């Protein structure tokens, strides 16, 4: 599904990622873990087109997507969420998800300004479909609230709803549980499982080990810009190198 081949990224003299390769199976939930500064978010930024790699390639279902900008990747069904939640703060919750349907609609300036019949039909479709995705994550009741007034847990769910509105093939989530309390984390785990049931591949970077061990089928461990291990949660937990990296042993 998603293949990363020999990615290297240097910032000036600093090597953030060195020769990292990994592959993600279709329909799986894959976790990427590692201590702070391991290069997890950098890897996400490269895959999603926000950074350009110094070397290496990324493939999505056999198609070389290295150096594609994020807007093109969205059209190909690859979407992400952000560690610090990037919402459209001045817009309502509902409108945020409607923006997620941008690639699913095509009315241009002319038909929007003149409200042509096709645009009116499309607008109806956008409103209904976006409400469906708010229902999916269980936040339809706050649809008319302004996005920057949301409590943190809700804004995470909103960001996920918005990402799902693209009907992606693969979702990359950057620390979806950061800042959530234990009840919200459980809720999140349930949502992620239901995303998988839709046939969408999920990749997440996460620090919350309980969550990762609970929902991920495959775990990839990064440390100091290199891939340390890959395997099932159990294999990874028992891997001496991983234990050393986390506990700081020699």
């Amino acid at each position: 599904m998603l293949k990363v081949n020999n990615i290297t990224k240097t910032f000036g003299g600093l090597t953030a990622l060195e020769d990292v390769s990994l592959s993600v199976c279709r329909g799986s939930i894959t976790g990427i873990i590692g201590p702070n500064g391991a290069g997890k978010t950098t890897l996400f930024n490269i895959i999603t087109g926000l950074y350009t790699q110094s070397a290496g390639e990324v493939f999505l279902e056999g198609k070389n997507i290295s150096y594609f900008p994020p807007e093109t990747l969205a059209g190909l069904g690859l979407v992400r969420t952000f560690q610090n939640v990037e919402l459209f703060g001045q817009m309502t919750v509902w409108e945020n998800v409607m923006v997620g349907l941008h690639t699913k609609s095509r009315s241009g300036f002319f038909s929007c300004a003149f409200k042509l019949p096709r645009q009116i039909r499309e607008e109806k479709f956008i409103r209904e479909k976006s409400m469906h995705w708010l229902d999916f994550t269980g936040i339809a009741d706050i649809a008319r609230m302004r996005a920057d007034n949301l409590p943190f847990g809700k804004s995470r769910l909103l960001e996920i709803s918005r990402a799902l509105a693209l009907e992606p093939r693969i979702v990359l989530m950057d620390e979806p549980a950061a800042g959530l309390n234990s009840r919200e984390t459980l809720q999140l785990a349930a949502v992620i499982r239901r995303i998988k049931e839709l046939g969408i591949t999920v990749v997440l970077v996460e620090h919350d080990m309980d969550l990762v061990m609970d929902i991920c089928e495959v775990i990839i461990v990064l440390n100091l810009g290199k891939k340390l291990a890959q395997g099932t949660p159990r294999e990874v937990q028992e891997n001496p190198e991983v234990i050393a990296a986390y506990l700081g042993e020699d």
Partner: protein
Amino acid sequence: MITEEKRQIFIFLIFALALLAAPVFFRESYLLTVLVFIGIHTMLAVALNLLMGYAGQISLGHAAFFGLGAYLSGILTTRFGLDPWLVIILAALCAAVVAFVIGFPILKLKGHYLAMATLGFGIIIYIVFNETVDWTGGPSGLSSIPSLQIGTIIFDSDLYNYYLVWIITLCVMLLSINLSQSRIGRALRAVHDSEVAARVMGINAWFLKVQIFTVSAFISAVAGSLYAHALTFISPASFGFNFSVELVTMVVVGGLGSIYGSFLGAAILTVLPEFLRVFEDFDVVIYGLLLIIMNMFMPGGLISGLEMLAQKVVLKIKKKRHADA
């Protein structure tokens, strides 16, 4: 329960009817002239608001597009005798093409750099108006531009010009309102709030900014053409840096991201200097003070100030009713 959409159509109809009925009460030629200017300024403020208030991109050179429309209309009708209506469309298309071409490099820039680039563009165009004396008449201006004409109606009186300008302005406002509430409008606001998230959602932010810049230039040029035909005389001074800044002020004072706000901003900034004439030498000082006060107490612009006031009044009435009961 009235739906949101019906409420908006209702507001627009009231607004349009009030404006179309205004000449019944303002018969004086001077007042009508001021209202014609408010119409042209509203069109310009709406155009700039699409770029600034919705897409969040500043332009300090918008007077240039206004000027391009005015000069192209002036030159092509006086020197080549082309049909004025045809020229309005031609001029607007020309301005749009210019905006489209310069938009690609310019709109890669952000914040202060974008302000500088648009400022530079505005100044270059201003210099062109001043220096190409053979075409534009240079600093002394271009005169005897013909009035517009439909059949036997010649738009040479204030009343005719009032209706001409305001019908077109109302159309521009309606189309802009439609646009702002559509998929495109949401995409523009998304780019404004978080460009990176907008791109991840599949919005080509750069191209979208170029597109709205082009649309904005098109509308500004139409306003310029109408201005040239209504005044029958134009000179470069009307299209310089000062006017670009005045346009930005209209948009900000009225309310970023509100089409009616642009009307309020344009109206206030057009009328204020006229009222302040009585203060003679101090008019500029009072003008400046008033702008500062407005921005301090209504940071969201006049429109959100009014909305807040209305909410307070409604709340008070409700409280009073509650107390009475």
